[in-house]
């Protein structure tokens, strides 16, 4: 399943499928990006980050892709699990302060 940035804030996928969450950022001078996961009733938690001198970074079951040309960031989650259900935020570093996107709610169906 795939979301389209700020215009489709919900994404529903089947357990075991791969998920892609997209984010468009606005400031071409931003040099650092983070994906956060926020579970219900909790604060945002760091998932993975990437600096602007990279275009891909992999973690455990997650991959972040950065396309600076079109100012686009994506989070790929492999083999999505029920525990991945949450709201996902991208954030860009602007002069030392983070600016968050609107978030995408990921729902995993068993």
């Amino acid at each position, binding site marked *: 399943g795939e979301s389209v940035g700020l215009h489709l804030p919900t994404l529903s996928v089947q357990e075991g499928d791969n998920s892609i969450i997209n984010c468009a950022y606005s400031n071409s001078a931003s040099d650092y990006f983070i994906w956060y996961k926020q579970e219900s009733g909790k*604060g945002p938690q760091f998932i993975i*980050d990437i600096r602007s001198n990279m275009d891909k970074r992999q973690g455990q079951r997650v991959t972040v892709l950065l396309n600076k040309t079109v100012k686009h960031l994506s989070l790929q989650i492999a083999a999505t699990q029920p525990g991945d259900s949450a709201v996902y*935020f991208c954030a860009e570093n602007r002069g*030392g*302060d983070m600016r968050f996107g609107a978030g995408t709610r990921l729902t995993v169906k068993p």
Partner: protein
Amino acid sequence: DTAVSQTPKYLVTQMGNDKSIKCEQNLGHDTMYWYKQDSKKFLKIMFSYNNKELIINETVPNRFSPKSPDKAHLNLHINSLELGDSAVYFCASRNVRDYFTDTQYFGPGTRLTVL
């Protein structure tokens, strides 16, 4: 061994009251933040603060004021509460001198309900 903690977790109060939310971090970070998250989950930065500088988001009403008794604490005071102040407030911290990461660590949030 909670990294960033906030109290209270829930706060229900009447319009016009004055209230405070406390935040503590034990990470040794030099910068702390307050965010407001509305019902649509949008996170908006309100303040960033280190021991040298307070940066205020100019859209934040002056009824909101951060107070830092020491480097590990940044409390949020709100005067004359209004219905529109109802939201979840998150504290976060970061070490700006950490070259390898600019990650902010968030507290669990305080849900404020103004009646």
